[in-house]
């Protein structure tokens, strides 16, 4: 029994390693190795041969410059920078709207009233539908079925979702400017997409709100605070770490949810098509995904710097 010779501390460490060992192996095999490999690809020229792949590192095995893939992407590629910008813009919008909406909804659902359990069940329901293919099929119907025509997910439901055409007609006839009408109709169309992406966030806020004892609100009421004041003085400080959690969750959700050529996450679609579509350019797809990853990390860091650190405002 060699165990007997171990100190308590060492045995604890051993047990800890034992528990995380499966993850560690998996991380090396299916995360670290592919990550390093895809970085090497991004600096190379990958040729498909009959038996498999031939990897020629740029500048070493061929005449190209080491960073040629990246240089091409940023200087010569007409699409990718634009796709990145669209994804960044969409994510920023989603983060702001979804965080505010889910906080609003959670506060409303938290208050004790009849039927709140039913509403909770309803609001979490989109989590079941609002992912993957189903979500794309729904979204597509919502957009009138024309945006996705080039993919498999084409015009499934032409008569689908909030058709705001009649409202649009009325507004245009009423002399409202076309740009404003377009803005309003886009917003109406986006309601579903935001509401349906808020399930987990509402859940997280609710679980944070559940930790605030009711007596705090009663005490505040006794002191003459109205509900607006007690929200900012009691609710907000407790849930502000959850706001950060939700912001990061919404970001990542938006960044890793698969889209199509013109809809949803266009960047992911472009990378997938480059790597596994008809073109099969592993090297360039790898470079694209590295730039994309860098952008995501920048987003998360920005969120951490802006709202992640415990600020002095909360303790005041």
């Amino acid at each position: 029994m060699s165990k007997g010779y171990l100190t308590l501390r060492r045995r604890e460490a051993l047990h800890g390693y034992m528990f995380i060992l499966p993850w560690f192996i998996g991380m090396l095999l299916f995360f670290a190795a592919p990550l390093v490999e895809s970085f090497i690809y991004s600096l190379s020229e990958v040729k498909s041969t009959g038996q498999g792949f031939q990897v020629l590192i740029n500048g070493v095995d061929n005449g190209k410059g080491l960073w040629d893939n990246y240089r091409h992407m940023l200087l010569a590629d007409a699409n990718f920078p634009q796709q990145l910008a669209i994804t960044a813009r969409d994510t920023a919008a989603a983060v702001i709207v979804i965080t505010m909406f889910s906080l609003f909804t959670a506060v409303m659902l938290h208050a004790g009233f009849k039927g709140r359990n039913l509403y909770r069940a309803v609001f979490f329901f989109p989590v079941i539908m609002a992912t993957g293919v189903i979500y794309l099929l729904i979204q597509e119907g919502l957009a009138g079925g024309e945006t996705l025509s080039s993919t498999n997910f084409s015009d499934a439901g032409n008569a689908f979702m909030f058709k705001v055409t009649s409202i649009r007609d009325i507004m245009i006839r009423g002399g409202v400017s076309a740009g404003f009408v377009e803005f309003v109709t886009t917003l109406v169309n986006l309601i579903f997409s935001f509401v349906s992406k808020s399930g987990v966030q509402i859940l997280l806020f609710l679980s944070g709100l559940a930790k605030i004892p009711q007596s705090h609100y009663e005490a505040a009421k006794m002191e003459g605070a109205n509900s607006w004041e007690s929200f900012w003085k009691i609710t907000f400080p407790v849930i502000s770490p959850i706001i950060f959690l939700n912001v990061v969750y919404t970001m990542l959700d938006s960044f890793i949810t698969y889209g199509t050529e013109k809809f949803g996450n266009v960047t992911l679609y472009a990378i997938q098509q480059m790597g596994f579509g008809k073109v099969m350019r592993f090297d360039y797809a790898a470079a694209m995904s590295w730039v994309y990853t860098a952008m995501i990390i920048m987003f998360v860091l920005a969120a951490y710097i802006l709202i992640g650190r415990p600020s002095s405002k909360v303790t005041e």
Partner: protein
Amino acid sequence: MRNKFFKLPGNDELIRQTLSQETPTLQRVSSSKLHYLRKSLGALSFVIPRRVDLRRRVVSVLMSVFRHSILIGLSFVVMYPLLFMLSNAVKPYAQARDPAVIWIPKSVTLANFEDIISIMDYWGSLLNTLLYTVLPTVLQIGVCLLVGYGFARFRFPLKKPLFAIVLLTVIVPPVSISTGLFRAFYAFNPFGLLGFLNSVTGGAVPASVNLIGSHFVTVIPALFAASLRSGVYILIFRQFFISMPRELEEAARIDGCGPLGTFASVMLPNAQNIALTALMLAVVWNWNDYYTAATYIRSRYTIATSLSEVKQLLQQLAGAGSENLTVVTTRIQAACLMGIAPLIAMYAALQGRLAESIETAGLTGM
């Protein structure tokens, strides 16, 4: 200090007036005493209605109307796709273009479902989905529970940097490692082990195996907590286990349980709700995950991949004529509905557990 500025609205005003007339000393009554007095005088306020009370009641009724109207409106937005699916899936397709029929069809048919079952090979896809995504998900959650426990309860060197890597696995999108991962599955040779065995045995063991399209593509990463969003579950479980009191484990340890025994006998039963919640999320995400299925499983159709192609199949069958569009529309809705029907059933069954794990605040644990 406190009572000097104490404002007593409504009933409290009445109580105070009553009190001050009878016993002036009780004017500075503490809030808890006031509470009892208010209770006992509750009946009085019913007999003598006061204007302030009426206003409050009106405000609270208005608030509740406001709240319910917003929530019902949003619920409609949320449920709209499901209602639309239901309404269309049971419509005979002649009625899909009938302007007189909007929500409730004149007659109900099951033909759409029957067509879809044969067109997209529903039972085959369902079986593939269960084998390729649901089964690995259960393994994944089990392993993530262990890993989360390891990070929550034991002190060991390099714990912080290792946990930072867990967070990194969450941040890096699957597509960034997909090129390397594809090759890892295409020529599977973990740590060069197979290559080593190949050279030792002189070729009896293959130098590498192609796992693309086999069960192992989803099962092996699940066993090593490396499949879709594993980092999220590890994070959730770690937070949960940290919030558990240590006394529970100490009792089990005194009874002679090893760390695994303690985990299985004490921690797991307590983590039931949180584990089921995570399992439900994981099943949903994997179920609808088109990306993994399309990239690594490829030839075998899961619900997600066959749903993505059902439209094309339908159009081919309908001869792509525009008058057949309605046929396609109603059948697609039936396909969507059937695709998520098992998820809806699961949600209905686990919904209570979900609510519980919210109430006990086990989800964030911060």
